[in-house]
Structures are given as structure tokens and as C-alpha cells.
């Protein structure tokens, strides 16, 4: 078996995970490869001094550039509680009499026609 697959099995065993579906090591390896490959290719592109190889600064920049949307930590509970208090203070909006499908405004829906212009 490939070395990486054996590594993933060993890591899972070391963490005490004994019961897992067969495709779990494959999924983990997939993710590991995708992540490191994208960071490294970004690093290569971002390196300014010398066009081959990756500079440490470029690597740091590559990782930082993804922190906005990847691996975001859940927000702090106090902050969420404040947000919730504000949102929940508003009374539930009245429902007007209407027939047919109740949807938000047209600009929020996908009900428009694609004119293909």
C-alpha cells in the first residue's frame, strides 16, 4: 500500500480512532493533497525573488490569503448572544393576505428569465 495511505491509517490509530469507513483515509489524503498543492502553487506564483522555488514569505502570504473563508472558527458566544438579542427583539413580521407562492422580493429569487443577452 502507498506510504501516504499507511501514514493516514497510523495517524488515525494514534488518535484512538478505530472504526471508520473505508473511504475515510482516501478522503483525508485527497484533502491533504489538495490543500498543500494549492498553497504551494500560490506560493510559487507569489515568490518575487527568483522565479523558481518558493520563498517563506510567499508561503506565509499564501496561507494567510485563505484564512478569510477557509477554516473559519465559530464566532465567540458573547458576540453571537448580542447579535441574537438584537435580532430577537424585533417582533415577528405580520403576514399580509396573499395568494400563491410567498417569496421574498424578486431580486432575491431565481424566478427571473435568463434572456441570454
Amino acid at each position: 500500500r502507498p506510504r501516504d495511505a499507511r501514514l493516514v491509517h497510523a495517524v488515525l490509530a494514534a488518535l484512538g480512532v478505530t472504526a471508520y469507513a473505508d473511504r475515510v483515509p482516501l478522503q483525508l489524503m485527497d484533502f491533504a493533497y489538495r490543500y498543500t498543492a494549492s498553497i504551494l502553487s500560490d506560493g510559487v506564483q507569489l515568490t518575487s525573488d527568483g522565479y523558481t522555488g518558493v520563498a517563506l514569505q510567499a508561503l506565509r502570504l499564501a496561507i494567510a490569503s485563505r484564512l478569510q473563508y477557509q477554516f473559519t472558527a465559530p464566532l465567540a458566544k458573547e458576540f453571537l448572544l448580542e447579535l441574537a438579542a438584537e435580532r430577537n427583539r424585533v417582533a415577528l413580521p405580520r403576514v399580509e393576505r396573499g395568494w400563491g407562492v410567498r417569496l421574498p422580493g424578486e431580486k432575491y429569487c431565481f424566478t427571473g428569465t435568463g434572456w441570454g443577452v
Partner: protein
Amino acid sequence: MSGAPAGTTGPGSRAPSVSNGPPSAGIHMPPQQQQMQAQSNVPQPVANQGGSGSQQNLNQIVLEYLSKKGYNRTEAMLRKESASQDAEGRPNTDRAEDMGGEMYQRGFDLLKNWIEDNLDIYKSELRRLLWPVFVYSLLNLASDFYVKDCEKFYESNQSQFSREHELDLRALSVIKSPEHVHSSNIAKLYRDNKYRISLSHMAFFNLIQFLESKDKEGGSVVLRVLQAHLNLVSVDRSAVGGERSLAALLAQGSDVEELPAEDEGIPGHNPGSANTSLNAPKVLTKLNLGKMPMEAELMEDVRGDLQDEDMKNPPKPHQSSLVEEFERQIKQEPNEDAPNRDDIPLPPSLARDVALEVQKVKENRDRFKIEGRTGGKGPGLSITMFTFHNTFDKINCIDFSGDTLLVAAGMAESYIRIWTLDGSALPVVPHQQSSNSRRLIGHSGPVFQVSFSPGIESPAGSDGPNTTSRFLLSCSEDKTVRLWSLDTWSCLVAYRSHTGPVWDVKWGPQGHYFLTGSNDRTARLWSTEHIEPLRLFVGHDSDVDVVTFHPNGAYVFTASNDKTVRMWDISRGTCVRMYTGHTGNITAIEASPNGQLVASADDMGSIHLWDLHKGRRLKHLRGHGKGGIWSLSFSVESTVLVSGGADCTVRVWHVTDEKTDPAIAASMKSETNTGVKPEGSGSDSLLSPYIPSGSAMGGSGTGKKGKGKDVAVSPEQIDCFPTKSSPVYEVSFTRMNLVLAGSAFMP
């Protein structure tokens, strides 16, 4: 100490004699100098014995010499000052605290042995102390730099907690030094909060008395831990409730699996209460659990339609008329318990709603009635199981529409496929061939839950409004919730607000609101008309895994990986109930149609039934295997619960109120002893050449011991229907008390 260096230099060479005058100089001379002097003045006997005698003889020899010579005061002084050393010359540790790292092990062993030797009625509640004492001792050892002792302590004691606290144990196993304590989540959680345990008065007094009496042998260590980190609440035994009352304890067998008390742990709280502060009042918030009252116009219209219906199809002799049925339903609701209609705005009723209500009354009257225990055997329940083949483990969720015509399955490949259950063709859409299934493509991540809007089968051949489901909601890992139309088979709206994958979405009972639970630890209430969520339910400490509505639509339930179930009020957004006591991650939750109970199931295979008014746990049902129970459903009368899980079984449980419980428990015991198998569990078999091949499971296998494991099955289980190897993703009772079940075959 002083004995050792003098002893080693004794035999070989003469210790440099301290010439401070004759040995009978004052008591203020340090014993060390005295010893050395005495030694140098008594060369021969010391030299002879020095080789063979070791440190322990030295003191004896000196004392003998002194007494022989008559130096009484010197001798007394030597005795007194060497009393703090033992024979080896090492400090005498008779207080546990002086032993360093070992004191915690001593204290723990002391506590454990005392508990084991204690009276049975106190044992179960005192045993709950062991876990927090273990955790806090471990954390103290780690933060005081006793690395080796910490490891030893963990190794020797962790096995007794592995059943209940497996995950916590794994997190604690890496904590060995102060840095670990500062950076570990679980250490911070335990250290920043006090662990609450309640004990009855007698047990509490006994405990304190014992610890004080065994002060030196480790009692003081345990007492310090208790004072600093635990919040011990001493309660009257009768107030603690059914499980702890003397009668219940004496009746309990000795190997009953023990569950944490409902108010134990971090954060400790009064059972059922959502208030986790230390001085929370014992009063629970009042709940309005009755049915949502219907609008007056709607009632009139429904009554009129029911009368027409009665005239068209007069009721058979054994049936009541539809109007009588409707009146009976209305009379059942006491007025004070009903939620206020003004608090929850709902769309004004339309003709479709009238038709819906008429159909509901009809199905309620014509349903298969499950009323109480039918003479020693369980109810003859019909379960229709639909098994999906060739799924390659891509199916994440299944949902059946209210009119039992359609089934939707959400896939890990980001689309949803909808089939007709009887193989008939779906309505034609331009540019597509006629077929019995259709794909809904739009999400960009695996779909975790699909939910049909409330609907019911239209009466056959009627020209009234269509009452079938019109919408489908789906939620996925791409943080959006999509509303699909089942008329145009396209996506209408994508609701974006969550900041993490959305794990669950459910429609409200009136079809206007829906609720989502997500990885970002919040649950949000939406209305189809608004693109932003209307309510934010914040309170869980871990992601919200499953959500459901209360049947009257005024409350919602959420459950999370932090092992709590919370109940929220929609109109105010506040948490009104919190239920702790699960030992595993919660994977399914369902409220009973009578509005009094909620059932939640976890991945350790146990189902807990909670009473909403009183805030206590009613039942704990065991029998499912580990791996997760994916779906729960109550019968129309709320007396039967059916559950389907990852152990590939569908199980049927009996749920009654406590008043009738002892009588039924007695009769159930005799029933299982004689091994009566419930008969009449007929089922329909639906064979179709299309993908959802309905393979009906009609076997009745009562399992007294669940598959030979050491988990005993609760006596409330009526039936267990095993499948070959298809985990069951969805079970649902229709309004006629037929069970639909959906599973995916995994070879």
C-alpha cells in the same frame, strides 16, 4: 538528612570531630554535631557495627549510648527531634499532602474504597463524585508539574470511566504539564466552571464526616478539591425526583447502567431549566403546549365542508361522523394552555387550508387506531420499508412527502433526486422526458437534509384545491438553504445567512416558517417571505445537529454535540428548557403530536424521553446499537415511538405516561418472559423495477439481548425489525398510523 552523611563517613574515616567541649554541653547543640561528637568519642563499637549497620541503627546506637551514659535530657531531645524522621532518615510523611504527586492517588483511592463499601442506596449518587474528582485531581497534578504522577494517575484510574466519558478521557490523556492545562479546551472548561452534583442530605453528611475523619490519609486532599471545584448541592431525597427516591433505588437492579443526573455537570442547572447561573430559581418557565387555536373563519369553513363530506359519504356504523370527530378534537384543548395566536403571525387561511384541514380530520377518523396495550401483545403496526440500491453511500438524507406520493433523497454529490413512490410518471416539464424521478441541481456542497412542505393526499377525483406538498427545502454544506418548487421543478430562493455548513432544516407545522441548525452553533428561524432569518437561537456550545418544531408551532427544539437539548420560544427567541443527560452526540429529535413530550436519540444507541412541563426525563430507552439513530417518529396518539438507525434496524417502542407505567411494566415483564411474539405485523410489499425498490420488512424479531452484546434492551421495546445491511435514514408515521421507512443498501 543528618544521619546519612555521618553514617557514610563513620566507618571509613574519622569524622572531623567538633571540639566544642564535652558532650554534655547544652541542648542547643544541633543533633548533627552531637552525633558526630558521640561518634568520634565512641570509635570502636561504631566502627565494628558501622559496616553492617546502616543509618537506622545509628539513632538506636546513639540513644543507647546516651541513656547508658545518663545524658537524659540529650536523649529526650534526640528522640523528639528525630521523631519527624522515619528509620531511614527520610521525612516522615503521615499527612497525605506531603507526599507530593501521590496525594491525589491516595485521596482518590480513599474515596473510591469508601464508596464501594458504602450502603447501596448511597452508592449510586456517590459514584457520580468520582469523575469530577478524577478530572480535577488530574488537572491539579498537571499544573503542579507532577508529570510522572499525572501519567500514573491517569493510567490507573481511567478504565472505570471509559464507558461514559470516552471522548473526554481521550482529551485528558494528553494533559501532562501546565502548558497543556492552559491550552486545552476541556481543561479550561472544567477549571473555569464548577461542576455541579446533587446529593441527598444523608449522603452529603456522611461524605463530609468521612473525609474529615480521614483527614491525614487523603481526606483533606479530596476536601480541597471538592471545595475549590465542585458545587455540591445537598437536596432532600424526595425533591430529587423519581429516579433517586428510595423506592426506585431499592427496586433497581445492581447492574443498571447509570446515567448522569439531570442537573449534574458543567454547567450544572436545575433539571429542565435553561438558567445556568449558580443562583437560578427552581421555577421553570411556564409553557403553552396546547394546540394552536384555529381561526374562527377557518373553523366555520371546515365545519361546513365536513358536513358536505358527511352527506356525500355517510359514516359507516362503527365510525363517528366527520363533524363529531372535528368537534371532539376542538374540545380536547384546554384554553389556558394554548399559545397566543397574536404572538406567532401566520398567513390568513385560504381554500387550500380548508381542504387540508378537512382531509386531516378524515384521515384521523379513518386511521389505524393504536390504543393502549392490546391484550399483552404490541400493536400490529405496518411498516413499509423503501430501500435504495446502488447508492454508493452517497445518500445523506431521505424524506417522504405528506401525501406519500414522493420521496426525496439528498446526495453527497450536491443534487437532490425525487422519485414517485408508486413508479408513476412525474408531471411533465418542457424539454425533459417523462420519468418517475427528477434531479434538482443547484447546491454546491453535499445536501444534508431535505424537507417537504406540509401537505396531504388530495381526495380522489375532487375538483377542490390541491393539498399536496408544493415546496421542498434543502440545506447543504455550502451554508445555504434552497427552496425548490415542486410545480416548476426549479430552485426559487437561496437563503444565505449561516456561516458554516447547515446540518438540518425542518418546516413548521403550518408551512410558513422553517428552522435551520448549523455548524456555527446557531439555529435560525426563517419565513419563506424574508431573505434574512427572523430569529437567532444562540446558546449551544457546539454545532446544532438536529432541529424540530413543536406541533403547535410556537416552540422549537434544537440538539447539539454538547449533549444538550434546548427548547426555544419563537416569539421571544429565548431558551425555555434545557435537558442534559445524554452521554453521546445527539442524532435525532422529535416532538410528540400531543405536545407533552420530546424524544431525542444519540449515537450511543439510547433514546431519552423528556417531559416538557416538568422538565424531567421520563424514560430512557436502550436497545439500539451504536452508530447513531437517524430518525424518530411518534404515532398519532403519541403512544408509540418508532426509530431507525445506523445499526440497520427499525425499532418500535411503547411510550406511556408515568401514571400507568408500573402496571404496564409488570405485565410487560411477564410477557417477555414467556416470549410472546407480537403478531399481525403485516406489511405491504411494493416491488417496482425502478431504483427505490420497496422491499417490505415484515419479520418480527423480539430481541431480549440486542444481538448478544452486553446492552440489555429496554422492556418498552415492542419490536425490532432488522434489515440485511441497510442503515435506516428516515422513519415517519403517516396520519393513518402507517410507518414509512427509508434506507440505503450498503453491501
